[in-house]
């Protein structure tokens, strides 16, 4: 089957011609609406209120989704939307990390508003093609491609029956098909999911860019929340965008000289200091595995433990010496000197439909090294790499795959499920072959893969109702909150990070807050008020990146040489000031550091009310499984007996000598669960929410989001 035959088989369902326009101070000032049920399009203006309140990126996505659905919209209804938006800073080339896009939709896992961030070129290309957001609603009857030609001002919906569904082949096909030449490939970006996204609720989206040095397509992922499943449910095979050639001034910034100056300073800092700091340019985020293992924070065997002697086999040292190839493009947008997107040029697959093929593998990153490794009790780097590849091409989130498989493994080892239920799969911890076979089943929609692909929340219910499992035990060990699986950090010894995961809007994903070290190691936030302040500032600051189209990693995976002399080095104040100057330099605004926080607070609280609207925004949904708080089992307690006995003695003045481990587990649990409740009280107060976790009217008024529809939702629940 050649590309010409594939293209000729496309059936044109709808066409939209538009004026190309020009970006002004970071905004195209309009969004593109596409309806796949009616094959119609619309151009929606972006007004000043929308820019002022919602900024861009995730903010635009949430606002468009709020307006587009109704209170009863389910994730698989045609009314559900998928929105992709960059942000006003997105697409600059002068400062690292400016290529991010934010995807928003109702999640199949949480059944509420989900946002997921992703690198790659699509978001900036979308803006430079004339759009601040792409909003897709409805469902196509058969697989379609939506193509945005940003060089001619044409959008088409094309039925596409013959192309592959799995990403590593499909992206290559479409890049080749829509680029006019080899040189033009760098101006094409493709969004795809894959087979497993059709058969599970944990589907992801791959966003591509063309690596001119390796002459290959590369991909980044919008992993969390199952938005790839929504994509395939709408029968979208792919989104393709073709952009004009990228230049550094396409955002038409207010003051490009300031942006250049700040950028040059930052590039110099990265090039001179990265090698002696986190070595992001060499190892990417993989350097975190050793650190987490050293500090007892690496999830091992479904978060039971925090370290393992075998973790040395999946550290950056192994990946650098045997697998990573550092000679090509390691940035996922122009101008990113942090360059952390590591790649394996050639890896021979051992299993599955592409067995014995040599493929390029993007990653693995830290999260995948844990999710496809330590959390499963597997420390074989080649298993991790193969799982990484197949998760990407099949379109499933490695984090959810790993965390739910770890849950399944613990259920299997405890007799909750058996080989009759798993269809013969011996899902013990450490069984790499069985774990990979489970992934292949997810892709095919067969066997136990169908059940596992439902995610932990639904599996807990099913195992209880169908197999008579103890629901309390499953609640304790099932690492999910709000329906989303935990990302890869052990939080047992950090009360603040328990809140950092439990008190998120989307579910336990660390992009909102990552305060483990500040709490557990640095001991910088000892009181509830300190923790509450951290769980106000850091989620708000981190949210800001998702509004403007930036990656967080250049913020503090590299720090200035004199950062240690500042009053609050954890905030990296010089970089915060950089962001203020860049935002003002692009948009012509005049905000300060406090202004960044204020911008985020608006969108953050809007998202909280959105959850409320969907029925999930109250205190009960902020609870975390006990495995995230303390030792569930005797085995866990006794693996860290000194630590836990010490806590009982020092904090509760309990003499542990005469007590059984079961008794000590119970006492510690009562204490820690009470601590979590108190933390929630303190955080709600700091955030301006009532004791049920609902933003108060005063808060809504102060933030200027006391719109009638928002107030109506809050009044119903408050």
């Amino acid at each position: 089957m050649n590309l010409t035959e594939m293209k000729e088989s496309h059936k044109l369902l709808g066409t939209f011609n538009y004026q190309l326009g020009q970006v002004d101070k970071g905004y195209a000032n309009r969004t593109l609406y596409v309806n796949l049920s009616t094959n119609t399009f619309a151009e929606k203006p972006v007004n000043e209120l929308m820019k002022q309140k919602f900024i861009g990126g995730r903010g635009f996505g949430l606002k468009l989704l709020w307006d587009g659905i109704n209170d009863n919209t389910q994730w698989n209804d045609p009314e559900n939307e998928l929105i992709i938006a960059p942000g006003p800073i997105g697409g600059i080339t002068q400062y690292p990390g400016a290529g991010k896009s934010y995807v928003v939709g109702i999640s199949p896992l949480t059944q509420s508003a989900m946002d997921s961030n992703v690198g790659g070129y699509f978001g900036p290309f979308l803006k430079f093609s004339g759009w601040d957001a792409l909003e897709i609603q409805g469902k196509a009857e058969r697989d379609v491609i939506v193509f945005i030609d940003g060089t001619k001002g044409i959008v088409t919906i094309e039925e596409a029956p013959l192309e592959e569904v799995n990403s590593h082949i499909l992206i290559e096909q479409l890049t080749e098909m829509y680029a006019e030449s080899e040189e033009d490939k760098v101006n094409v970006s493709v969004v795809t999911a894959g087979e497993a996204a059709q058969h599970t609720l944990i589907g992801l989206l791959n966003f591509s860019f063309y690596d001119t040095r390796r002459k290959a397509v590369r991909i980044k992922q919008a992993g969390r929340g199952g938005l790839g499943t929504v994509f395939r449910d709408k029968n979208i095979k792919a989104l393709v965008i073709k952009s004009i050639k990228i230049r550094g001034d396409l955002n038409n910034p207010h003051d490009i000289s300031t942006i250049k100056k700040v950028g040059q300073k930052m590039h110099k800092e990265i090039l001179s200091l990265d090698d002696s700091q986190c070595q992001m340019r060499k190892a990417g985020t993989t350097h975190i595995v050793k650190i987490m293992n050293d500090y007892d924070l690496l999830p091992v065997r479904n978060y039971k433990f925090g370290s393992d002697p075998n973790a040395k086999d999946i550290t950056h040292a192994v990946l650098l010496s045997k697998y990573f190839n550092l000679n090509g493009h390691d940035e996922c947008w122009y101008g990113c000197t942090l360059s952390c997107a590591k790649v394996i040029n050639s890896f021979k697959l051992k299993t599955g439909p592409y067995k014995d093929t040599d493929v390029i593998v993007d990653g693995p990153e830290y999260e995948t090294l844990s999710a496809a490794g330590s959390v499963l009790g597997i420390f074989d780097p080649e298993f991790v790499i193969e799982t990484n590849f197949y998760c990407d091409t099949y379109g499933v989130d490695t984090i959810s795959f790993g965390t739910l498989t770890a849950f399944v493994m613990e259920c299997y080892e405890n007799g909750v499920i058996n080989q009759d239920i798993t269809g013969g799969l011996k899902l013990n911890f450490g069984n790499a072959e069985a774990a990979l076979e489970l992934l292949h089943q997810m892709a095919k929609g067969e066997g136990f893969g169908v059940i596992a692909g439902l995610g932990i929340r639904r599996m807990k219910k099913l195992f209880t109702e169908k197999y008579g499992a103890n629901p309390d035990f499953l609640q304790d060990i099932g690492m999910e909150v709000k329906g989303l699986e935990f990302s890869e950090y052990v939080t047992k010894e950090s009360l603040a990070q328990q809140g950092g995961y439990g008190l998120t809007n989307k579910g336990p994903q660390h992009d909102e807050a990552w305060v483990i070290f500040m709490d557990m190691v640095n001991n910088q936030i000892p009181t509830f008020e300190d923790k509450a302040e951290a769980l106000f500032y850091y989620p708000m600051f981190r949210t800001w990146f998702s509004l403007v189209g930036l990656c967080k990693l250049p913020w503090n995976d590299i720090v200035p040489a004199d950062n240690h002399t500042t009053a609050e080095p954890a905030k990296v104040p010089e970089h915060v000031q950089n962001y203020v100057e860049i935002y003002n330099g692009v948009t012509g605004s005049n905000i300060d550091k406090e202004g960044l926080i204020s911008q985020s607070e608006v969108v953050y609280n809007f998202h909280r009310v959105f959850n409320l609207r969907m029925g999930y925004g109250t205190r009960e949904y902020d609870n975390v499984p006990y495995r995230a708080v303390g030792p569930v089992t005797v085995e866990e307690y006794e693996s860290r007996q000194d630590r836990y006995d010490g806590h009982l003695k020092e904090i509760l003045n309990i003499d542990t000598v005469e007590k059984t481990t079961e008794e000590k587990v119970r006492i510690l649990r009562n204490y820690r669960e009470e601590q979590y409740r108190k933390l929630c009280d303190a955080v709600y107060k700091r955030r301006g929410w009532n004791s049920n976790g609902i933003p108060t009217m005063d808060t809504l008024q102060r933030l200027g989001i006391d719109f009638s529809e928002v107030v109506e939702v809050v009044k119903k629940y408050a």
Partner: protein
Amino acid sequence: MGDSTSFAAKCSYGERRLRRNPPLEAFVTEGEYGLLLPLIEVRVSRLDEMVRGSKMIKVNGKDYPWKEGLTVKQLLAEMNFTFPLIIVVINGKAIPKSEFTCTVIKNEDDIQAIHLICGG
């Protein structure tokens, strides 16, 4: 499964040592020992001197045993603080990374070892 050199195990070492060596008041009262008190006091005083003379520093707010010649670099190694981006502040003064090997920690110093880490 983690071993005795893990960070968490080391963190509680200081507290355990203190509990094995409680202060003088825990040993004697005047009423109990009467005439023998001065002798006991002397003996207990010497014991207490040894105990109270035990050298301690604070690391991130928690007690940690001090020894002569302990450098910042050695302390970080003992604590298993392996993260590359650590800011060390001793008694409010930041110590550049280049001086970790030659900076000697004194008894009763208050040390903050702040890890700057973002997450992956």
